């Protein structure tokens, strides 16, 4: 009897293909007044951020410490948005069925990649030359690492946008056809009338999404490495940690899963998409989130104890600077919010198997990740002399000023606004994947309970 409380009935969308199409497209075309009100508020905050950015630019690029919070905001937006696309890529490769409703939510973050790319550009002028300092690049001639970091992030953005476009193409066709628009309508992309869902189209789409997904993963990891090394680690004398780029990527994966959970929660509560985004999606993602919390700790620990036992002057200087003295408060906040609190929330199965539990943990992680970026990027940009080999005199903590607040709030608002505007182009729920999922599953009676039967064509 007690056991029956833990039995979760299989969720099954009891809708026809026509109902799904019309329901999603109706919401796509009528986002509601609240959507535009929030968009306008975010737009206002984004303008405030732009003013802050112009004030930074007006003060010039020589005072690097003034750009620390801008760099942290860039690192935050990049880590979250670009890594979020990977969630859909990985789950599609794993052929999981529960990912269908959240596939587009994840892929849509590719649009925010364009925004993060734009955020990178001013930083290229702030990033010091590698001349005379230790870096990944040795004494490379030309504008290294500026040009290569730009190329890497640009490639990642192109790949992400291609994934989003080709994954959305069937839904864009559906939108055009069901809305009764003519082939000559310029509001649609020219390829749309020509894609008509023949077996070859579907097969090519599947293969290409797999290929681009693989390339995206390969590229994302190296971009995490380049950004974290060039904009944080190489700027702090004595910091030579092979684990840090991987840690940066793990933190990005953790935060991007958290971001998708929070986005799902907002869409569920504000856009009446509850019938698509059910407990199953939150529960499944919360398990991965819990694993990434443990990975966060593992990577941090691995990185920490080699320095702790090494105890070379350069290593002690780095530990004091970004963990135990100058940025100790920020580090404690990051440690608590990226590991301790979410771990304690998610380790309880009863809480994990809810919608609010993973959302609460995810919200805490999103805040903690920002603090984590602050202790890397602000700390990195606050060092005056990057040519040193040891951080003998620790730089002071760079407290955020009014301009920093403007840049942080405006920068994050701009990213959210970009995502929201993206939902005006691409339906936020992947119609074709939901329909395909419905076709491949049924709920059947099994002894005294209902179970879901999944068809696996491959």
């Amino acid at each position: 009897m007690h056991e029956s409380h833990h039995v979760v009935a299989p969720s099954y969308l009891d809708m026809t293909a026509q109902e799904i199409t019309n329901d999603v497209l109706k919401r796509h075309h009528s986002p509601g007044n609240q959507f535009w009100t929030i968009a306008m508020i975010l737009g206002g905050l984004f303008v405030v951020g732009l003013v802050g950015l112009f004030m930074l630019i007006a003060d010039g690029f020589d005072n690097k410490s003034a750009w620390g919070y801008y760099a942290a905001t860039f690192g935050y937006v990049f880590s979250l948005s670009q890594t979020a696309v990977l969630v859909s890529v990985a789950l599609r490769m794993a052929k999981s069925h529960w990912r269908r409703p959240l596939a587009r939510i994840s892929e849509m973050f590719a649009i925010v990649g364009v925004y993060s790319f734009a955020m990178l550009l001013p930083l290229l002028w702030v990033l010091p030359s590698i001349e005379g300092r230790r870096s990944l690049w040795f004494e490379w001639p030309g504008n290294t690492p500026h040009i290569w970091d730009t190329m890497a992030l640009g490639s990642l953005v192109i790949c992400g946008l291609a994934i989003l476009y080709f994954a959305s193409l069937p839904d864009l066709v559906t939108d055009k056809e069901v809305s009764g628009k003519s082939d000559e309508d310029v509001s649609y992309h020219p390829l749309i009338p020509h894609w008509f869902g023949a077996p070859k189209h579907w097969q090519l789409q599947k293969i290409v999404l797999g290929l681009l997904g693989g390339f995206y993963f390969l590229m994302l990891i190296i971009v995490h490495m380049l950004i974290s090394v060039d904009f944080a680690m190489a700027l702090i004398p004595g910091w030579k940690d092979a684990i840090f780029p991987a840690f940066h990527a793990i933190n990005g994966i953790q935060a991007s899963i958290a971001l998708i959970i929070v986005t799902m929660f907002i869409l569920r509560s504000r856009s009446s998409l509850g019938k698509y985004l059910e407990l199953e999606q939150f529960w499944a993602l919360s398990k991965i989130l819990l694993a990434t919390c443990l990975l966060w700790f593992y990577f941090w620990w691995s990185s920490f104890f080699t320095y702790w036992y090494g105890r070379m002057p350069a290593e002690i200087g780095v530990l004091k600077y970004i963990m135990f003295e100058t940025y100790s408060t920020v580090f404690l906040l990051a440690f608590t919010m990226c590991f301790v609190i979410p771990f304690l929330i998610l380790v309880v199965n009863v809480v994990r198997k809810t919608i609010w539990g993973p959302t609460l943990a995810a919200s805490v992680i999103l805040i903690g990740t920002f603090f984590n970026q602050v202790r890397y990027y602000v700390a990195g940009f606050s060092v005056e002399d990057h040519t040193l080999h040891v951080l003998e005199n620790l730089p002071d903590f760079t407290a955020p000023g009014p301009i920093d607040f403007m840049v942080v709030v405006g920068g994050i608002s701009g990213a959210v606004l970009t995502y929201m505007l993206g939902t005006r182009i691409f339906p936020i729920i992947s119609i074709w994947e939901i329909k395909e999922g419905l076709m491949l599953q049924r709920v059947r009676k099994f002894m005294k309970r209902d179970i879901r039967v999944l068809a696996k064509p491959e």
Partner: protein
Amino acid sequence: MARKSILGLFDNADSAADATDVLLEAGATQDDFDVLTGSPYPEGAFGEKDPVHHIYVFPIIGALMGLTMALVLTAGTQVAYPMVTGGKPILAFPAMTIICYEGTLLGAVLFTIIGIIFESRLPRLRLDPYDARINEGYIGLLVTTEEEKLDDMERALIRGSALEVVHERGRALRG
């Protein structure tokens, strides 16, 4: 001989799958028809032949081109502006590896995008008949054949339980 297309509409997948047999019996070949669906069905579900494509060639070519470009760029720059640092060789392979990796992936991505556009034959020169109901769960059988055979194919589609045969593009019927 000019080829024209007609579209048979079916309200369920089983009827459409059966209709492909009727089309074959009526003299059509596998190359003469395509099954149009609003979501992907398992490959071979309609008895259609395996689509032929060369999509895998594109990322390989792209990756090779990207790698070549990156090698030329990196090695060329260092040879053109030689700087000896700490007695290390002019060609800094660890740094070159990163750029070659970037170039290889960028080439692969760009050529994959070109590949799907080319292999899907997008955009098409001619827009065939289509019906919006395909996006709402109906199945379309698009038959493309010589003009003189078109009537036979239309009769075959109707014999195969097609609800309607569409001749023109642009119909966007609802409910």
